[in-house]
């Protein structure tokens, strides 16, 4: 299992060195953003109660579609339900306290800037089959 991947990586590295970066191939066989990828068209899983957390301090995965919400300069759609001010009314989990400290450990009034882009750590899940076998054991 390890050797073919290693040789593949080596081959890819060689290719990348020689040819332009566009010819790098992923495990999927094409770019992750390729529209023909069937996994991209899978519906996002909606799981009442949420996904189990696999290890301590894992950022919880998002158990619902998020395509109608945006996180941008104007606003953060996640805060509509997950902010300390709104989570109760919306019966949603609240943003953890750790998200209200800047890198120097000072408490911030709003979500800290470094935590603002929720999807950097929290990801929704599609009902797609794993590309490789996963033997990871949850805690």
């Amino acid at each position, binding site marked *: 299992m390890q050797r073919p991947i290693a040789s593949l990586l080596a081959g890819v590295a060689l290719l990348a060195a020689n040819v332009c970066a566009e010819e790098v191939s992923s495990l999927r066989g094409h770019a992750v953003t390729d529209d023909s990828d069937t996994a991209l068209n899978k519906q996002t899983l*909606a799981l*009442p109660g949420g996904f189990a957390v696999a290890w301590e301090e894992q950022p919880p995965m998002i158990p*619902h*579609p998020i395509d*109608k919400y945006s996180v941008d*300069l*104007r*606003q*953060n*759609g996640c*805060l*509509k339900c997950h*902010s*300390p*001010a*709104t989570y*109760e*009314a*919306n*019966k949603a989990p609240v943003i953890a306290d750790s998200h209200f400290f800047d890198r120097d450990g000072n408490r*911030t*009034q*709003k*979500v800290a*800037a470094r935590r*603002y882009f929720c999807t950097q750590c929290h990801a929704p899940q599609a009902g797609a089959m794993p590309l490789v076998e996963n033997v990871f054991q949850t805690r």
Partner: protein
Amino acid sequence: MSDTNEPKHTSAKQSKSRKTTLLILLVGVAIGIVFWGGFNTAMEATNTEEFCISCHEMEVNVYQEYTDTIHYTNRTGVRATCPDCHVPKDWVHKVVRKVQATNELYHHFKGDVDTPEKFETERFRLAQNVWSQMKKTDSRECRNCHEFDSMDYTKQENRSSQGHQDAEDAGLTCIDCHKGIAHSLPMQYDPEKDAPGRSEFYTRLQDPHADTSTTSAQE
């Protein structure tokens, strides 16, 4: 006395005046139909997407934002155009709204929001106008298509199903939760101040320009 002496004459006179009355009535009805039809046709002509986006204020700002949303394109191909959400369907409310729209014409010709920058400056105030109005009318225009009674909660995602039933019990209205679904939200919109039932966005600000420089959602 004279009645009995001149029965023929009176009946002729009566029938003549009757004919005149009938004629006047018919002409009146005809003119009425033409004017009424004309009035309604003209009003309906202003009730189309083409008319709305013939003003570039609408075309370059709110219309562009709307084309990215589910009310513009979706799996079933049913589209809600501008007047479907922004003009009441029933006649009385529609005419009232159309009269109010003359104010919009005034600001159009004055050029008050004729650049995206100017529009952005006013967006918070304008959005609050619409939100307040929708709150006041119990989201009347939304309910032309969306009704709690017609919702099959079992077909909705768990969150939506729960949310809609809670909202119905709490007597909330569509706009309480569904702001910014067809157009961009204003920079000053802070989701934390918009908890369902406790929203701070239904009153127009005292000074609409007081808060334009802050981007409240992030620090």
